[in-house]
C-alpha cells in the first residue's frame, strides 16, 4: 500500500490524532498525537490491510530550535512490503510518551536506549534503566546542548591536544 493510502486510512480512523503527512520525501512520514500513539500503532499492526508486523527502528531526534524532541518510529510490514515513518513531538523540558512495548517487544530495548541518550521517559515501560551508559551517568549525550562532565568516577574526560603532548 502506498504511504498516501496508509495516511488516508489513519485519517479516517483517527481524524483528530494524525496530521502533518509528508509524502514527497525519501521516507514518507506522518505525525501522531503523543496521547494516541499506542492506539494508532496497535491499529497499524492488527489491521489486515496494513499489518505492520515489525518495528524496524525507534529513535530520537533533538530539535532545540523548535524546542521539541521527536521520537521516530520506523515500521515495516513483511507481508505487504510497505514501510511508514511515524513521528511524535514531545516538549524538550519534560518528554513523556507511552511505551510501545505492548505492541512490539523490540521497543523494550530501543526505548531504553532513547531514555538513556535523550532522556525521554516511556510511561508504563517494564524496565526503564540506562542501557549503554553507566547507571550513574549525568545527562543525556545525544541532546544537542549536552555538556560533558569534567570527570567520571574520578577519571578525567579531558585530554590535552595530541600535538601539545608530542611537544612536551
Amino acid at each position, binding site marked *: 500500500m502506498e504511504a498516501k493510502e496508509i495516511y488516508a486510512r489513519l485519517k479516517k480512523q483517527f481524524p483528530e490524532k494524525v496530521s502533518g503527512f509528508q509524502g514527497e520525501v*525519501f521516507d514518507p512520514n506522518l505525525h501522531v498525537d503523543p496521547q494516541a500513539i499506542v492506539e494508532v500503532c496497535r491499529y497499524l499492526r492488527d489491521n489486515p490491510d496494513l499489518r505492520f508486523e515489525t518495528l524496524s527502528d525507534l529513535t530520537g531526534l533533538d530539535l532545540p530550535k523548535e524546542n521539541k524532541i521527536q521520537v521516530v518510529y520506523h515500521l515495516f510490514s513483511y507481508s505487504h512490503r510497505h514501510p511508514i515513518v511515524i513521528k511524535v513531538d514531545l516538549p524538550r523540558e519534560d518528554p513523556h510518551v507511552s511505551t510501545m512495548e505492548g505492541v512490539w517487544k523490540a521497543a523494550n*530495548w530501543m526505548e531504553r536506549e532513547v531514555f538513556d541518550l535523550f532522556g525521554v521517559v516511556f510511561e508504563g515501560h517494564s524496565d526503564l534503566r540506562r542501557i549503554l551508559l*553507566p547507571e550513574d551517568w549525568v545527562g543525556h549525550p545525544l541532546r544537542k546542548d549536552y555538556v560533558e562532565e569534567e570527570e567520571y568516577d574520578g577519571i578525567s574526560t579531558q585530554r590535552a591536544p595530541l600535538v601539545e603532548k608530542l611537544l612536551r
Partner: protein
Amino acid sequence: MSEAVHAESEAFHTEDMTISMGPQHPSTHGVLRFIVKTDGEVMREAIPDVGYLHRSIEKIGEKVTWHGYVPYTDRADYLAAMFTNQGFCMAAEKLGGVEVARRGEFCRVIACELNRIASHLISVGTFGQDIGAVTPFLHALRERETINNLMEEICGARLTYNYIRIGGVGYDITPETCGRITQFLDHFESIVDEYNRLLSYNKIFVERLANVATITKEDAFQYNIVGPNLRACGFKWDIRRDIPYSVYPELEFDIPVGTGEKGTLGDSYDRYIVRIREMEESCKILRQCLQMMPKGPAIAKVARKFKPPVGEVYVRVESSRGDMGFYVVSDGSEYAYRVRIRTGSFTAMSLIDKISRGLMVADLIALIASLDVDAPEIDR
C-alpha cells in the same frame, strides 16, 4: 524418627544462585555480561548487561564531516566493517543525489561478499569453539586469513577497511587481485565441503544444537530479529533481494532458509547451517561480479565539502548480521544532524532474556554463538 528426618530436610535447603558471566568471558564474543540466575544447571533467567563497548559513534557522527565519518563507521561493527561503510555511504548518496560509479558498485559488492564470508567464518568457527570443538576454529581462521590478505590487497587494511567512500570506492580492484580472488574461490568452495564433514554433520555437534533455543517466526517479528537469524526461522527475507540496492538485482543467488532438518524449525542448528549455506551463495555472487565488472572509474566525482540538502533518509543494507538500518538526518551543513545505526545484534540481544529461561547454562553459550551477536555492534 520422623522428627529427625524433618529437621534434616530443613537443614538441607536449596536456593537459586546468581552468577555474573562476563564481561571478559571468552565465549561472549566481545565484552558482554550476563547476570544468570540458576537453579543448579538450569537457568531461571539470563539478563544481558550491555554497554561495555559503547564508543558514542552516533554522537561522533554529528561532530565530523560526511567524508570524515566513514572511518568511524568501520568501528561500529569491526567484524563486518564493509557493510557499515556501505550503509552510511548509501544514506549520504541518497541525501546528496550522488550517482555511484558502476564499477564502484561492483567493487563494493565484491568487497562486501568477501567480508560476509570472513564474518561468517568467524561466526561458525567460534561457534565450534564455544561448545568445545577447537579444531574447526583454526580451520576457519586459516581461510579468513586469506580473505584478510585479499582485503589488504584491495584497500590496505585487514580489519577496519574505510574502503567504501561516498560515490564509489577508495581504490579500484586490479585484474591481479581479481585473479587471486578467483583462486581463493576455487580453493574455498571445496573447503566448505570439508567444513561440513568436519563440523556441520558431526553427530556430537548436531545433537548439541538441534532443538536448542528455538525462535519462532512470530517472536522474530516481535523482537525485530533480522538476517540469518530470521531466515533460520524459515522466513525467506533478504534485503539484497527484497528491498534491492546496489547491483544485487542483476545477480543470481539463492536465499538459504532454515528447514528444521535436524530438529525443530528455528533452532540453533538452523541458525548455524544457514550461515554455512550463505557462504556458498556469496561465492556464487563473487564469481558473477568478477565476470560482469565493467570498465570505468571506481568513484564518482563528489565535492570535497560534501553538503547534502536538508532531509532525512532511512536505508537498509543486508549486513552479515542482517538488516542494518541507517537513519541519517541532514540540515544542509557540512556535518550530519543525526546519524542512527540500527543493528541486528542489538535486537537479537534483547531476545536472549526471553529465550534463555529454562535452558541449561551451557546452552546459553550455544544460544549466544548461534545468534552471532557482536559486542561492538550492540553498543556502538
